[in-house]
């Protein structure tokens, strides 16, 4: 099934794409999903992260079939 990764707003513009896929592996977290995809790009400061549409911290575990999202601070309303 793999892990679906999404990027939004200014982060998507900066990265040049809106989604990625990562193969599931033991012990993955939000942080390691990012570092697998972007080994040379540190996660920009203030980036918010979500797993399966719930806000999740950097050490939150990520499993097969999960959706992980990275996005800048929100500015609605």
């Amino acid at each position, binding site marked *: 099934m793999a892990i679906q990764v999404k990027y*939004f707003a200014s982060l998507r513009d900066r990265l040049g794409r809106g989604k990625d896929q990562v193969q599931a592996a033991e012990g993955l977290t939000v942080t390691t999903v990012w570092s697998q995809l972007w080994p040379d790009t540190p996660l920009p400061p203030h980036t918010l992260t979500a797993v399966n549409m719930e*806000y999740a911290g950097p050490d939150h575990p990520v499993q097969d079939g999960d959706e992980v999202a990275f996005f800048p601070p929100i500015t*609605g*309303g």
Partner: protein
Amino acid sequence: MKIEIREQPFDPFQELACHQESLVELRGRYGATASFVGALRDYNEGEPVHGMTLEHYPGMTEHHLERILEEARLNWEFLDALIIHRVGELHPNDPIVLVAVWSSHRAAAFDACRFIMEALKSRAPFWKKETLADRQRWVERNTPG
């Protein structure tokens, strides 16, 4: 209770009237209606703003708006609430968001409306990109109030 992400322009006052009209079973029960309308200004951070693109995270945005309403219901006794939020292309003066709450008395309507609006701003994933005279720029943070 109604939550809607709207891709087309809307008239918040017409929506308010229509929604209230639809509350047939609540007629005579609400003594207070509080509402908030947020609209696009034509000036921000020292520059004229010609337009805006609003983006959201389909699924997550709706999910968090639903949760905000659930939390509001745990804290205040109100009879109904309405949230409409724009996405897509906006022009100055276009309404961005409508929050309205119907309750028996004014305190719950005022307080729940304020709570929903503040929670929306801090938790519902939306992002604004402004169109200026010569470029576009992402809005980096919300104003404090």
